[in-house]
């Protein structure tokens, strides 16, 4: 007898698609584990180069020529100096690329940010290194760099001692107007997380102490005075950065507990007074479910109100397939010549839930409009796909990456 219900393993092997179609797949020369940095350079010769930061050593970053998206070609792949560091995040403005470096252990190096000249994409040239190492620092986890002038880092520093070992990163604004000499322009940390603060240390999450660290900081040219910050267990924040030397908190939406922490991204839907806030699922097998994408009414900045969540398939099936299942990264509507921008359509990654697109025209009832869940990659250590990050180009092509083995999936939204 052949039952129609597939086993969890068979489910993980199956590719699921709705309104999305795979047009090519590249395993990135056998190093198919990608972190949270994707951006596209339109090179001077017209080529479209996708830059990808690896999730962990040994590789640093990979550039893929996607001018013909049906036939992506790896044109450069670089190595990290040692196993104790990872790049994880990068951003590109013109021919300049910023790469964040985070170490496994505090005190280790290189920790901080590199700036590269990528005018010849095959030969990235190091312009400068911004050192963020220190006795309590693990360097930088994420970089946001969209205007060519300031890099927004979530990073530690030599002079920052946290009140709790999990709180080793804070928000740093780095002036890179002179790319060969980046300097800090301002910083902000969650009150109570820095030794010597007058505020008491914030309460730890009772079940999952993810820490009080900023994960992503999003700053858009349309709102240069605002930083949208996801602060892990501290929730979502909006900072006033009109004076970059003195960021000020405007609002903080804290929702964990009762939820399970690890606020990952706060992305404004510009012009609509809405935020999309994503958590990061950090545990396998559904242990930290629910990890959601939230639609938040931000019409009164000082009173953020969640109004819905992005609809996901039920965890019962996906949490049994292997690895993580839940929210993570978004296509963040980056500025840039080749980036897709929408204040209604949201595209996000959900680990073994693949890449999924939503229409938020009605913020109270967002609709799922497309998804693509690749079958488990050949060498997946989790036995299932773990789509980690996504970037969408101005033509609507979706570039999704696996965290461990699958590499790059280029997907067309149909039609």
């Amino acid at each position: 007898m052949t039952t129609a219900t597939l086993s969890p393993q068979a489910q993980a092997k199956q590719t699921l698609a709705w309104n999305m179609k795979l047009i090519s797949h590249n395993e990135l020369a056998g190093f198919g584990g990608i972190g949270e940095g994707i951006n596209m350079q339109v090179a001077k010769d017209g080529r479209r180069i996708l830059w990808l930061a690896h999730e962990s050593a040994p590789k640093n970053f990979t550039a893929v020529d996607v001018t013909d998206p049906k036939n992506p070609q790896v044109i450069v792949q670089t190595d990290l100096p040692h196993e104790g560091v990872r790049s994880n995040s990068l951003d590109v403005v013109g021919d300049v690329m910023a790469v964040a470096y985070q170490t496994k252990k505090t005190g280790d190096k290189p920790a901080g940010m590199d700036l590269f000249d990528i005018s010849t994409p095959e030969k990235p040239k190091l312009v400068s290194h911004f050192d963020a190492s220190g006795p309590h620092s693990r360097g930088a986890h994420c970089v946001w760099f969209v205007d060519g002038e300031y890099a927004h880092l979530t990073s530690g520093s030599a002079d920052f001692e946290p009140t709790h070992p999990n709180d080793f990163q804070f928000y740093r604004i780095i002036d890179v107007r002179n790319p060969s000499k980046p300097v800090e322009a301002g910083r902000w940390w969650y009150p109570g997380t820095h030794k010597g603060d007058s505020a008491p240390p914030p309460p730890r999450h009772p079940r999952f102490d993810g820490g009080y660290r900023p994960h992503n900081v999003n700053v858009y040219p349309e709102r240069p005075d605002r930083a949208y910050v996801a602060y892990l267990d501290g929730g979502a924040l909006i900072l006033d950065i009109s004076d970059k030397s003195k960021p000020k908190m405007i609002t903080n939406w804290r929702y964990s507990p009762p939820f399970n922490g690890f606020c990952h991204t706060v992305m404004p839907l510009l012009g609509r007074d809405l935020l999309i806030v994503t958590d990061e699922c950090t545990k396998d097998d559904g242990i930290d479910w629910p990890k959601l994408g939230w639609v938040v009414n931000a019409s009164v900045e000082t009173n953020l109100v969640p109004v819905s969540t992005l609809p996901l398939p039920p965890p019962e099936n996906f949490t049994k397939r292997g690895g993580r299942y839940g929210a993570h990264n978004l296509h963040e509507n980056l500025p840039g010549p080749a980036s897709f921008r929408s204040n209604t359509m949201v595209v996000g990654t959900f680990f073994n839930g693949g890449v999924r697109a939503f229409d938020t025209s009605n913020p109270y009832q967002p609709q799922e409009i497309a998804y693509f869940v690749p079958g488990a990659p050949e060498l997946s250590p989790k036995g299932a796909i773990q789509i980690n990050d996504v970037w969408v180009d101005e033509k609507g092509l979706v570039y999704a990456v696996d965290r461990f083995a699958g590499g790059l999936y280029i997907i067309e939204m149909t039609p």
Partner: protein
Amino acid sequence: MLDALSGKFPVSVVTGFLGSGKTTLINRLLKRPDMNRVAVIVNELGEQAIDNDLIETSSEQMMLLNNGCLCCVLRGDLQETLRDLFVKRRNGVVIDFNRVIIETTGLADPAPVMQTLMTDDMLQAHYRLDCVVTLVDAVNGLGQLETMQEPVKQAALADRIVITKSDLASNEKINKLESRLRELNPQAPVKRALNGEIELAFLIDVGLRDTRAKLADIERWLGVGTHEGADGHVHRHDQSIRSFSLRFDQPFTWETFSQCVEVLTSMRGPDLLRVKGLVNLEGRPGPVVVQGVQHLFHPPVELAGWPSADRATRIVFITRGIERRTVEQLFGAVIALSGQRDAQKASRSG
């Protein structure tokens, strides 16, 4: 935003009187390599039902066929089964099917099946009717059409008609049957199958797949009869089924068009077997696709643009006893009334 049609799963309804060979045809289709991600919904799993060599016996409601397709036995209502299929597909617990085939029972009226796809919000968001395929047995078909209502309605509602068992009947008999079928439903192309073999392209992708449909797609969907005769009228004998197409050169307002449809369905809904067409709406860049089965209409879908210079509204009607003239007069009256209303509005505001 995504296309209003392209994300919907195509649904083929295979109908035909008892013994017309529906199961044989479906089995043949499923053996094709490009039909390996199909969900088939059948009414029963008896000896005559979907092939014994394809299915291993099971007491479950859903089974995996040997070719990888999914087979569901309809236990409750079709609405529930289709909803359940969509949810299970999204959850990834069944195969990632890309097409649904529904096999109706021999005595079934296909209209309610078609209506289910049009009226249930969730179903019409995720599925689209691709094709109603009606099978007619070459040996017994003619007699069945003379003596029974079900086969007549099955043929009248069809997008495609397949004459089965054509090796068992004389050419003369088949020709007679064919001309009777063309009378009943001149829009639906008719082909003969031998041992259930028929070219796949004849049966699939008949409905509009996306809103950028080309002229050929639209003609394929509307059917061959739309060009017959200068006035679109097909000569009829004494049988009750009527088939005709109407053209309107002036664009409609949505209000006027929907009023025409409302009046027609409220007066003669049960006899309005099938309506499909393109409507030119004032101020809209593309035509609006309308389709109805008896008193129920699918929510209108606007195409991205007109496929040719011809921007006339064209609507195909298959009716039971409603004459072309009646529909024409009714549309004419509603259009005249709305014209008067518009004129009154204009004079009041002026």
